[in-house]
């Protein structure tokens, strides 16, 4: 069995099993916790509307904070949008998902995917630099932050190297790229990358609680 066969077969199966197990563990583990009782009278009806609003209101910082954290948001959006575009509209990636869902969709030319990957990679390094340079951010960063950064960056680096054929041996490079994605998937449920699932829940919860107390109107 070559490294590529391992990456496309057993490694993928193991990674997906760990990913699915971890995701369900985390989701059920948190949702089955005892809910905090709010004994106060609701100040207004339809707290859920506030919850929905919260999803959008918190997608951009409160105006007075924009000069301070605006760049951080922009960099974050570039990273997330880049990740989304490359993952969904890169032809080899689409074919991976098409094999699961049973239908194909339109993809972007390789050159565009390469350009988006480079922009995303630059944004990832800007985010890391900001984390290292800013004393407060550096202080509150732990292993999880750096692991999440590394595991998100690695598939971009290896993917670009594969696309540009920069490896001494193409198949080994492709295998390393695929394995780097499986590493990301394995780590995903157990660290801060889980925010992909939690951000909706936490924004909704915050929004609906604020609404109940009379905010988010």
């Amino acid at each position, binding site marked *: 069995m070559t490294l590529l066969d391992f990456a496309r077969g057993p490694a993928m199966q193991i990674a*997906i*099993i760990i990913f699915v197990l971890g995701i369900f563990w985390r989701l*059920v*583990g*948190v949702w089955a916790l005892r809910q905090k009782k709010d004994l106060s009278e609701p100040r207004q009806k339809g707290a859920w509307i506030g919850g929905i609003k919260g999803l959008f209101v918190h997608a951009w910082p409160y105006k007075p904070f924009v000069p301070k954290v605006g760049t951080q948001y922009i960099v974050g959006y570039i990273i997330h949008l880049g990740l989304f575009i490359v993952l969904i509209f890169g032809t*080899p990636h689409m074919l*991976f998902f098409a*094999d699961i869902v049973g239908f194909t969709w339109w993809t972007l030319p390789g050159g*565009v995917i390469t350009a988006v990957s480079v922009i995303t990679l630059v944004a990832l390094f800007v985010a890391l630099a900001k984390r290292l340079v800013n004393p407060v951010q550096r202080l509150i960063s732990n292993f999880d932050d750096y692991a999440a950064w590394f595991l998100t960056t690695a598939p971009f680096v290896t993917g670009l190297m594969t696309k540009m054929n920069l490896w001494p041996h*193409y198949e080994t490079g492709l295998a390393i790229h695929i394995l780097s994605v499986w590493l990301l998937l394995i780590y995903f449920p157990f660290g801060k990358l889980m925010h992909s699932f939690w951000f909706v829940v936490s924004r909704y919860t915050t929004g609906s609680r604020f609404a109940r107390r009379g905010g988010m109107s």
Partner: protein
Amino acid sequence: MKEHDLTLGEELRRQGISRRSFLKFCAGVASSMAIPAAMVPAMADSLAQARRQSVIWMAYQECTGCIESLTRSFAPTVENLIFNFVSLDFQHALQAASGDRAVEALKTAMKENWGKYLVLVDGSIPLKDDGIYSVSHGQTHLESVRELAEGAAAIVSIGTCASFGGVGAARPNPTGAVGIDQIITDKPILNVPGCPPMPEVMTGVLTSFLAFGALPEVDSLKRPRAFFADTIHDRCYRRAFYDRGLFADSFDDEGARKGYCLYRLGCKGPVTHNACATLKFNGGVSWPIQSGHGCLGCSEPNFWDKESFYKPLSAGQWGSAEGIAMAAAAGVALGAASAVMSRRNQDKISGGK
């Protein structure tokens, strides 16, 4: 003068081939094998001095496709002359003799050229039950290849079966078939995989052996680097369509008619090392991708067993859905258990209030 005593230069002159044509041939071979142009005169001189090389071609567990490809590939050329120049002392499919006389010719060739003959092999060798599943003239092919290898200067495994086991070794591999280099480990071995292999690769390898007295530089799978360094994808004329994101979605859609990339239809070009894209088959007429079918990856080990030929390369090999369902169930159970423990802990801290 006997044919065996003639040098290649003398043989060429006898057949009316000019030195200019011979140099053109040498330049062609040198270029296909990435030998520097400055080496061409030296290569030509060395080749012209070469004596008739004894070649023993053994066909083991095979389909004869390799020899069909090599002998029917194109009209007679100087390359064919090289084949004429070697002394093909034994070849099951091509020789006139049969039975005891054929074996006698083989033994004589081995004896007369002990330590110097070149063994070409097509077909895999079964190992199971002492190799009894593939036998010629009362001798298993396992015994035969060991006996031949002893007096060989080098061995060239022709085709994917001889190189890696090929279709004979495909799951469930009932005969325990393997490639030659898994049996013979103490001789120079060169693999020329492909189903079938490319005739020009054979010409190049033979020419190189005659000119330099050694097999050419090989990669990690013992394939000549000169022909197997690049992937099909690297040299494919449809590569521009891949880069532009233009693909055929079925074999008869508009994309297919426009000659778009066949990646979505399962082409294995990106992970297949061979020279088909540049040399093509039938004297440069066409090759599988030009004919509208994706590369099967036939020059790579275990290509038969790598799932469907029509599944895109980036699609994973899923295994069973049960494993994922069990993982989800185990995740739910672990999550519930974690929540129960947390609730107990909350109760303990709050004293049940």
